[in-house]
Each structure stands twice: as C-alpha cells, then as structure tokens.
C-alpha cells in the first residue's frame, strides 16, 4: 500500500504551502488534488498580493498579516511577484471620512501609504478618471497564483514532498477513532485505492465541507463566488484600488499584458459553480467605469469566477472569524489524525501553512522550526544562462520562460532548442511559449490534457485566447502518447476553445464579438471541426 506520514487534500495555495512547510521540516508528505493543481480559488482571483491596505479599516489584524506576508513573498518568490505597487484612489463623491480612517488604519497596521496629488496620480496613471480627488501609493503587487503554487511544489520536492493530481479523496479510513489512510479515485482510470497515512490535512478550500463529510464531520464552509473580468490591455501599470469601504468591482490588477477587474461576492452552495452572468459583468463594469472612464472601449478577454472558502464559525466555539482563517483539530471531536484548515487569503497562505504545521508537527514528535519565510522558492536562473539562451529564444520570451520554468527546466529547454532547431517554434505568441517548453511540460507526469499544460505555461491565456495556439498545441501534444491529449487531438482542440468560450459568453458584445467571429471562421469554416461528414 502506498503510504505517507501526512496526506494533504487540496492542490491550492494552502495545500502547497503546507506541503512545502512539512517537507522542509523533514516530514514525509503527499498532496492529492482531484483535478489539476491550482484549479480552484488560488488561480480564480484577481492575483493581488495585498499590502493589507484594503483591510486597514475593518480588520487591522488581517492588514498586519498581509503586509508581513507581502514582504516575505516578494523575497522568496521573486519570479512570481510583479512589484507594480498600488494606488488607492478616492473619487469625488466617495466618503472623505473613510479616507481619514483608512490613513490612520494603514499607519496603525504598519503599511506605508504615501499621499500624492491627484495631478501626480493622473500623470503616472493617465487613464484614471479626472474625478479623482485623493490618491495614495501603497506596496500592493501582482502575483501569479499558478506559478507561486507550482514553485511551492518544486521547493517541496527538493525536500522529498510529493504530489498526485487527478486523484480525488472519496473516503477516509478510520480504525477505532484514528485515521489510518484515505480512499482515493484516479480521475482518468476510475481506479480506487487506499493511501495509508498517520495524519490527514483537509486543505480543500471551498471544498473543505465535502472532504470533512467523508470523515463524518461537519465543517461550516460557505463558498462565496467572486467574478472577475480580464481586459486585453494594461489599463494601468499599478494595482488600482478604490479608496472607500470595500465593495464589488473596485480593484484593478495588471498582469503581464492584461488587467483583471474584480470582484463580486455571492454565497453559493457548490464551489464547482464557476458560472458567470451578464448581470455580474454589468455590475462590475458599472463600478469599474467610474475609476477608468473609457473602460467599455477595451476588449474584454474573458470573465471567470472562483469561490472563496469563507469559514463561518458556529457560535459556541467562539473562534474569531475575522482573522480570516481557522485551523480545526478534529481530535477535539473524537477523530484522531485529521485537521482542517479553512478560510484565509492567498496573500497569507504561507502563514496559514506555518500555523498549521506548528500544531501538527509536535503530534508527530517533530519539533523543527518553520523555515519557509527564509528560503527562496526556487533558485533563480542566472543571467549568464539567460544571455546564452537569447540565441534561440524570441528576445522577449527569455525572461518569461526563465521565470516560468526555473533553473533546471529552463536549462533543459535551452538545450532542446540548441539541439533540435525545430523546437524553437513559438507555439503561443501572446505568452511566448516555444515548442521546446511545451515538450518539457508535456513530458511531466502531471500533464494529461492541454489545459494542464496551459496552467503551467500560460499557453492560450494571453490576448488571442487560444485562437492560434489551440491548433498548434493540439498538434504538438498529439505526439505524446503518454497524454490523454494524444488520443483525440481535435477533441482536445475543441475542448480547449470551449473552456475559453465559457469565459467569453457573458461578454459577447463590443470587440469580443469580432474576436469570436474570427475564432469561428477559423475553426468552424477553415478547419470544419464542427460539421459532419459526406454521406
């Protein structure tokens, strides 16, 4: 029987943070994820690395945690963080009293908020509304949720940590009130088997409730859906927050060549529900257009949604929900060997992992200290190697690939391009993904379908939304017999575009209509992927 000392359920930021922390403390840990890594809330959000300023009025404890973690993540995850800084802007009509409270809150929480004049704000961000009356610079940043999570996995692996994707928890093995293992099911083969363990950590985010049910426990998680809009340009070079009581649609985060506007908050029963509607989009646009008046002229790339794992404490336990996250030791309820971590924010994932491991490790007789704040997630690719790679790479792509791939894989990719010139082909022009990189990622045991490769490489996530790379990646992946993707390349290609379509449907107006006519013209007409055969 397959075994691990600790099995962690959930491949989001919390899970990978715990995997890394445990592995660095010398604990044998295995993470299981029911689909691909980072497929839930950790990638379905605006990608803001909070400075904490957003919480400066309502929740200063959370604000303090944010600014500390913000500083740590910049240090350990240099290639995941784009240090854009952030602006808080108050518009004419927004409550000036809130501004005063906010300034005081930032000071009290240790967040440096530097006031600049409205003219200066509009000079550095010319698209901002002229109705701006006050502006502050804060240390917000943009963070790549996919990359941060994968780099946690890479770091954990160096210390023996393991992951299994497409492996779903379907039951908990309990003997005499003690957890002995977990029943899992392989998504592709449907095979069920048991993984033995001493401790089980439920880090399934908004799915925490379902996982705890497997052990007959109740964890009161309320998935709260947030909807976000991605635009095809950098509307601002900095994160832009509305300086008012936090509400829907008042955060803009630039990422690479795009901007994400978020977000809304609707309590939903099923975290699998990532549907979005015209109403949600219009709601965000209505607010967004107050900050950037020409917002409706930008092309919307897509709309997406994810669920926050909001924890709602039952009254009598008296746990403080305002801290944002909670750690439950189910031994308190008579089940030994299982803990649940729930709630929290992406920005504080590392701290959450640290707190959980501080509680868990002593149970295993392990008293190592947490070191996750000190060591970089991955070693950086040396400049000399990047310089050498420029011979084969599109110039703009070297840095992108180096940060995505990390030292070892970057080296493999450069070598492949050197030896096999045909792998220099750029498969995805928007994100500068070469065939060599695609092949490197496709060969990994965690790659099954095109979207798995997409999440690792950003293939198809740029401004063309898969129009051109859907064909190229389907063709390239069809050569890998180990992949599901090779069995039905045209089905994969359609599936890839359909996944993009899901985010395009609720915004089919403006320039998005134009883009869709092209997609259909190419794939339905030129390639006839939809129509039937002659008799």
């Amino acid at each position, binding site marked *: 029987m397959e075994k691990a000392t600790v099995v962690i359920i959930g491949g989001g930021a919390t899970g990978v943070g715990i995997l890394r922390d445990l592995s660095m403390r010398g604990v044998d840990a295995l993470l299981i994820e029911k689909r691909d890594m980072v497929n839930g809330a950790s990638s379905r959000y605006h990608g803001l690395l909070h400075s904490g300023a957003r919480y400066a009025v309502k929740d200063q404890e959370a604000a303090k945690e944010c600014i500390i973690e913000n500083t740590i993540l910049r240090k350990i995850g240099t290639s995941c963080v784009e240090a854009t800084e952030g602006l808080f802007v108050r518009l004419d009509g927004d409550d000036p009293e809130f501004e005063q409270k906010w300034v005081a809150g930032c000071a009290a929480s240790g967040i440096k908020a530097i006031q600049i004049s409205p003219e200066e704000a509009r000079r550095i961000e010319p698209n901002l509304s002229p109705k701006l009356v006050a502006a502050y610079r804060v240390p917000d940043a943009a963070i790549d949720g996919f990359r941060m999570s994968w780099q946690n996995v890479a770091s954990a692996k160096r210390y023996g940590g393991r992951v299994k994707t497409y492996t779903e928890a379907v039951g908990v093995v309990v003997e005499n009130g003690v957890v002995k293992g977990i029943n899992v099911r392989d998504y592709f083969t449907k095979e069920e088997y048991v993984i033995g363990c001493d401790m089980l950590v439920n880090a399934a985010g908004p799915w925490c409730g379902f996982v705890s049910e497997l052990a007959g426990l109740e964890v009161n998680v309320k998935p709260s859906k947030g909807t976000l809009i991605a635009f095809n340009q950098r509307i601002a070079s900095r994160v832009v927050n509305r300086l008012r009581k936090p509400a829907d649609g008042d955060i803009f985060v630039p990422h690479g060549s795009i901007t994400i506007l978020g977000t809304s908050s609707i309590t939903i029963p099923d975290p699998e529900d990532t549907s979005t509607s015209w109403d949600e989009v219009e709601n965000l646009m209505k607010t967004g257009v107050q900050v950037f008046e020409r917002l409706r002229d930008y092309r919307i790339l897509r709309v997406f949604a994810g669920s926050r794992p909001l924890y709602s404490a039952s009254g009598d336990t008296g746990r403080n929900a305002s801290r944002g996250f909670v750690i439950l030791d189910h031994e308190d309820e008579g089940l030994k060997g299982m803990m649940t971590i729930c709630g929290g924010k992406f920005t504080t994932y590392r701290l959450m992992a640290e707190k959980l491991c501080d509680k868990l490790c002593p149970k295993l007789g392990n008293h190592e200290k947490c070191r996750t704040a000190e060591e970089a997630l991955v070693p950086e690719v040396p400049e000399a190697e990047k310089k050498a790679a420029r011979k084969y790479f599109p110039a703009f792509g070297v840095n992108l690939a180096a940060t995505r791939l990390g030292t070892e894989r970057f080296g493999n990719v450069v070598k492949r391009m050197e030896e096999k010139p045909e792998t220099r082909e750029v498969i995805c022009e928007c994100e500068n993904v070469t065939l060599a990189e695609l092949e490197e990622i496709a060969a990994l045991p965690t790659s099954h379908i095109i979207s798995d490769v997409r999440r690792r490489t950003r293939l198809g996530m740029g401004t063309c939304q898969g129009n051109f790379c859907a064909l190229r990646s389907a063709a390239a992946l069809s*050569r890998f017999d180990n992949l599901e993707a090779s069995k039905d390349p045209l089905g994969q290609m359609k599936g890839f575009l359909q996944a993009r379509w899901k985010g395009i449907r609720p915004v089919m107006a403006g320039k998005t209509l134009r883009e869709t006519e092209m997609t*259909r013209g190419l794939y339905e007409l030129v390639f006839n992927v939809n129509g039937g055969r002659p008799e």
Partner: protein
Amino acid sequence: MSKSDVVVIGSGFAGLIAALVSAEKNKKVTLLSYGAGTFPLNSGVVDIMGYDEKGAAVASPAQALATVPAEHPYKKIGIPSVQDAVKFFLDFTKKEGLPFVGSLDKQQWIVTAVGTMKPTCLVPESMQGNQCFDAAEIVLVGVKDLKDYYVDLVAKTLPDWLGKDKKYSTFTLDSHITGGRDLTTLDVARWMDTEKGFNDAVSQLKSQAGSGKVFIVPAILGTKGNEVYTKLVAALGCPVVETTGMPPSTNGLRVRDMLLDALRKHGVEVVENIKAHGSVVDGKICKAVVAGGEVRDKKYEADSFILATGGFYSGGITMRDFGEANEVVFGLPVEADCVEERWVNEQLFSAEKQTFAKAGVRTDASLRAVDEAGNCVLENVYVVGRNLSGYDFCFEHSGNGVALSSAYKAAMA
C-alpha cells in the same frame, strides 16, 4: 470629385465582386477600401451551403437553397441570381487564370489543415479534394519549419474522413528557407513561384509519385493564378490537392489579387485606406457617403451605393454595448435578437446556429434595407455580404456564397 454611377463600400469578397460586376456593366465605379476583408483568413473557396438547418451535410447546394427559411439572404437573392452569379464567377476565374470548378448540383469536399474535410461548392483546380476519395494512396506532404501545418496531425485525422482502407504516407519537403523566423504558407508559395524553388520541390517530391496516388500539400502552390499547380501536376504525373489553413490564406489572397487586377483593367477607381463613416441623405435617397482618409473627410457622390463593409469581424456592424447594434455608414436598422438567453449558445461549436452570428441588416428582395414595418429605408443603397442578417455563415458554410450572389444581384440591379 466627380460623381460615380456606383460607389461600393468595402473591399472584401462581396465588395470586389460588386465593383467588378458593376464595372462589367460599363458603370463608373468607385471602390472605398479599408483592409482586406476576410481574404487573408478565409480559404478563398466559395461555400454556397455546406450544412442544412439541422446541421446535416448538404449533397446538393441547389436543393438546399430551395429550403432556406424566409429570413435567409438566399431567399431574398433568389435561386436564379445565385445561378447567374455562379456562372459569372466560373467564367471570370477561367478568363483570369485562376479557374474555379464546381456546380450548384454537387457539393465538393476539400481537405483542411487539421485533416478534416469541408463541404464547399466552387474551388480552384488546386483544391479539388474530391479526388482523394478514389485514390489508393494519399501522400501527405509537410514542409520543414512551416508553421500551422502539422502533417502528423493530418495523418492522424484524415483516415477518419477518407477511410482507413487507403494507404497513407507522409513526406517532408525542405524549402531550404532559413533566417530564423517561422515560415508561413505564403513564404513557401513565394519560393514555389521561383523556377529554382519549383524545380527543387519537384526533385524532392518526384520519388513519392506513382499511379493511384494523390498528393496533399499545404497551400503553397504559388502566390498567383494556377500556373504552379498545373506545372506540378504535369511534373509529378498524379493529382495534387491543396488544403485550407491558418492565415495568411494563400488562396484567399490569390482570389483577392485576381479581383483587384480585374478592377484595375476595368478602370475602377480604388480608394485605399479610407473608412466610410457617414452619409448624406435626402429623404429616401442617399447622395453621398462620407469617408475619412489620413487627413480629412471626403464625400463620394453616386447614383447608387453598395454596402459591403462586413459584419462584426470587419467592423461594418458594431455593438459597443450589448443590445445596441449599429450599422456604421448609413445607420441602417440592424436586426439583432439581443436577448441574453438566446444571444450565445452554451457550446462554441454548437449543434445550432448562433444568434449573434445572424445579426445584420434586413432587406427586401432587391437587397435594400427595410425598417421593422417592412418599408424601404434608402432606395438607392444595396446591402450585401456579411452586412445582411438572417444567416450564420459559419454554421452553414455559406459565407462567400452569400457574398458572391448578393453582390452580383445588387450590381445587376
């Protein structure tokens, strides 16, 4: 600026055909051009009707035309005009050195760059995919370093369409083009235009030729006309079939060049890089269209106008905010069923027509725009091609067919 008989707005397939047919009627024609329409994207073949209302493959386009719903442009154009337009196009292409073949009675099937086949009606000689059905062996030719054409993908898919009883082999042609950038079919077609390149290709492919074999190649057989195709078939002694492919579409651009050459011969005034954005109207008569060039606006006067500015893709129809569809030159009423639940289908590649694709200008049987009550809006403005409402050209595979026949009819009016 002297007044024209006809001003055609738009230089996609519909616009160029409208200008050509008008010029052949000895009209004084001005063509306002902004961009190349969908020529660089579409395959340069003329789809008339590939799939019927239910999505079933159509065997005879002529029969399918008889069953289209009332809202469909073909219903307004009428079958006789479609027949005349097809005849006109076949004669014209024969005369101009890029002969098309096909008839309304029998669908043709052409090979795509992903190894599927696509129904269409009129094709250049180089794309006659029907020849593959009877072949004993298919030789799939790829080109070294060519982007967006993956011969192994075609080899994996095509047997599903052509039958697994045939023999399939692959061969990679080396164009020896180096320089470090990705190659497109257009690059390779230019190489094939040269005598050296052509001879090189023949010497590489010759060994693969044989009786019962058909070569399938990406669209690389020259940038103009059918000369390269004819020479290659003669040199190899067996059929050669070009596929469709990603942009730039070599064949689409061949058709564009052929049409523009003909317009020049007819003395059509082609004004390039000018975007029409308004009109001067007196009652139900349009006097002029207003178009902006690099420096300033100009008015183009004519007795009649043909609107061929395209749909959402080309910008002839816009919808900045949902529900507010707009025709940009004349402000003609746009028919768009903007109900959220119906506007887009669940699936991108759907078993039903997409409602948004059907948005456009509704016309009477003479292709003049009508308002909701059915009254003609402008008596001397004709609407053609993707400006028209009531059809989903992707679902049906009918885009260039509607463009050709509506443009022909409008020009003959």
